[in-house]
């Protein structure tokens, strides 16, 4: 891709000595970009290094800068697997696994399903789409108030169904330490699946109608059409949606706070909640930092290959 900058470079070196003014003009774009870049380097990458450093100290209430080795990590991992009841970190990563897996899977399935339904020349699509998507525009701190109420056995769904005459109905997951994480899954799916639907719908709209027509003429049933032709064509969307969901899942924080306040005995914690609690409430800064580093590494493993492939100079 030819750009303005390159054409300028070609012009300038031939001249004897460019004036200060024109040299300033040439550097101006970089000067304009510099503050943002510097901010990113210091406040993102510098701070990440700082957090990594802290995770190797024994900082408690206040940061300490004496390296004491990987004690925080050893505590995180050593602490955990055998204790009964399980430790907070063990709970957090188990929850992360359950939540991440179900959240991504259900959002993908539901998003694709809704997108396919909406793509059948539906009247009122313009009304339905925004309804499916609005949860993404609201803070979960807000909608969590309603969800918490809805899932509360004494007030919400259970109570309503009892009033309607189904008195044996029992639904107290939100108060049950073994099931509370599944309520977080329900709420998370509710929030993000509409967005995933929109991604798939955009993908479906981008598929060449000729291919569909040709397949129909060949006698493919609708099911075959979607399974054999449409869904394979949507592969790039699956990848993007997976990346978005994985990264949302790891960053989920207010979902747990608003819905469960951490759940009974911290049983709904995700690593993000663990980090916050240990760093700011339990005065275990080094342990909190170590958990933040582990979260970051997980994201890096998912995002960096993706960004690299997206940004790599494509031959034109």
């Amino acid at each position, binding site marked *: 891709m030819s750009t303005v900058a390159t054409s300028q470079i070609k012009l300038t070196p031939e001249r004897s000595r460019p004036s200060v003014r024109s040299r300033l*003009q040439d550097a101006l774009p970089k000067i304009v970009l510099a503050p943002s870049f510097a901010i990113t380097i210091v406040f993102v990458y510098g701070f990440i290094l700082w957090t990594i450093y802290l995770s190797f100290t024994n900082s408690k209430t206040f940061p300490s800068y004496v390296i004491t080795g990987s004690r925080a990590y050893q505590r995180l991992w050593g602490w955990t697997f055998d204790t009964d009841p399980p430790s907070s970190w063990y709970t957090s990563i188990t929850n992360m696994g359950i939540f991440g897996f179900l959240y991504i899977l259900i959002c993908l399935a539901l998003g694709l399903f809704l997108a396919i339904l909406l793509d059948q*020349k539906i009247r009122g699509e313009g009304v339905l789409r925004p309804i499916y998507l609005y949860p993404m525009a609201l803070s979960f*701190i807000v909608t969590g108030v309603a969800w918490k109420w809805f899932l509360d056995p004494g007030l919400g769904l259970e109570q309503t169904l009892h009033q309607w005459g189904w008195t044996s109905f029992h639904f107290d997951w939100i108060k049950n330490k073994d099931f509370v994480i599944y309520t977080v899954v329900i709420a998370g799916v509710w929030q993000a699946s509409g967005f995933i639907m929109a991604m798939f719908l955009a993908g479906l709209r981008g598929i060449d109608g000729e291919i569909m027509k040709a397949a129909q003429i060949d006698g*493919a049933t609708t099911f075959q059409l979607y399974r054999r032709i449409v869904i394979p064509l949507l592969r790039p969307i699956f990848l993007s949606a997976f990346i978005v969901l994985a990264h949302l899942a790891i960053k989920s924080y207010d979902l747990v706070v608003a819905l469960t306040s951490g759940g009974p005995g911290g049983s709904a914690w995700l690593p993000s909640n663990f980090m916050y609690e240990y760093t700011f409430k339990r005065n275990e800064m080094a342990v909190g930092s170590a958990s933040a580093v582990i*979260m970051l590494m997980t*994201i890096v493993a998912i995002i960096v290959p993706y960004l690299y492939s997206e940004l790599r100079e494509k031959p034109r």
Partner: protein
Amino acid sequence: MSAVATPARQASSGMSTKTLNRIVIYGLLALFALFYLMPLFVMLVTSFKTMDEIQNGNMLALPKAPTFDPWLKAWGETCVGLTCAGIKGYFWNSIKMVVPAVLISTMLGALNGYVLTKWRFRGATLVFGLMLFACFIPFQSVLLPMATILGSVGRFGVTLQNSVGTSFGLGNSTVNLVFVHVVYGIGFTTLFFRNYYEAFPTELIKAAQVDGASFFQIFRRIMLPNSMPIFVVTVIYQFTNIWNDFLFASAYAGTGDAMPMTVALNNVVNTSTGVVEYNVNMAAAMIAALPTLIVYVVAGRYFVRGLMAGAVKG
């Protein structure tokens, strides 16, 4: 399963399956619409009910005698922690934080996008990649250092206050949050503008350069007048994100008078003195949701475009 696939040669029996298919599809779509709308609906109707009606009635029923009192109470009287002056102050806190943060981060994003596409230099892609990655980090990995820095800046502000008489806003929680949101927002805003300007004809800029237009003249006269759609997308995206933020807000303004709306709401809901007034809680939640909800209703299309731009390379 769908109308598209029913070949025309299937005669009358085909017509009836076709109709049945349509009914099933519309039924499913309506069912899911109810699922997505349910929490908002419950919030809305409950916020207009009296406590009596909530305790004895059905949560899905419409209010029998709609009352606006819960809204008034949430706005002006309800307790956030120990202060009982409603959430109005916190609402304005959020406004004071969101407006400058959105404007600054959007302007910076526009300039960055302009430089990164139209004034490319060696390493521009790397610079962009580094800024882009910043969008994806879990903020937990920068939370603590930022808290430390903001703490020192705050102490410096106090020193200034004592010696010079003004702290220049240093240590002010709202200023801190504006700063934090700008820092961790420019990755997104730069991404939006870069992708938009990438498709902008470079010939126009070349022509302007030949005519002697400077860097800023080109930006002001050529780029800005043609950037309206992406400005709308970016402003809406940033507005929604910053208004809805909870993590930074609770870490850096979790107590005191400067807390933004989301933190205050969470406190209202979790204040457990006396009877829990669900109607007031729901009204408070609705008030907190209104700004983003209005933006979504008015300009939802642009909001979705912003979300998509963050996910798929535009």
